[in-house]
């Protein structure tokens, strides 16, 4: 495409980025670790 000759340089620092909103992921990324069972193989002190 022909955009012609350059005229000037602009710096655009947008207040909000023109990107789609990120939908929050309601599912946990990794399953929560199962509770650790106490080690019953060893005698209690």
């Amino acid at each position, binding site marked *: *495409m*022909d*955009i*012609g*000759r*350059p*005229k*000037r*340089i*602009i*710096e*655009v*620092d*947008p*207040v909000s*980025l*023109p*990107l*789609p909103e*990120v939908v929050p992921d309601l599912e946990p990324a990794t399953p929560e670790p199962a509770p650790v069972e106490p080690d019953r193989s060893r005698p209690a002190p």
Partner: protein
Amino acid sequence: MPARLETPVATLAEPIHAWRTWTLVGSRDGSQVRLAPIAGDGRPWPPRRPAQASCTRDRSHVRPELECTCGLHAVESPDELRRTRDPAVLGTVALWGRIVEHEHGYRAALAYPQRLRLLCYLCFTLWGRNGPGDCEVVVRHRGGRMVPLCGPHLELSRRYGYRVPRILSARAIESELLATYAVDPLRELVRANGGTAESISARR
């Protein structure tokens, strides 16, 4: 004077909205559709993240460089895009970061599509934005390149021996494209991003 042009003369808080075209690539079943630049490095634009300018001539300079042709190109009017080589998608795009403003368009460091529609390149070349009809099919070629066509131009292509290896529904491909980039369809072919020409000018 070039030395003066190098210095940014304006700092804006709103992105600039302009027009551009892309090619389209996708998988065999019509999924994984991506916008790809017609010229330049050919890398597809990432969904939900800004496209970033690169330079195939000189990786060391700032992008876009005033004296180079690098940057993400866009134009002020869709009519400027009629001579683009084989476009598949027409859309509006938001530009930000460092931008070189030209007589008829821009080269930007960062960009993201705002509204998109599939384009029959034969209709667009012949009639521009006043062209008739929507695309009916998308012809997928080996390698993944996708070519949207209207019904009459599909028939014409077959009559003249244009290879039509795999035909997909244009409606399904456009829906996939819009969902991938999470953008709205382009219906209005007069003004970028549904804004007025005045508001576009005011953003500069």
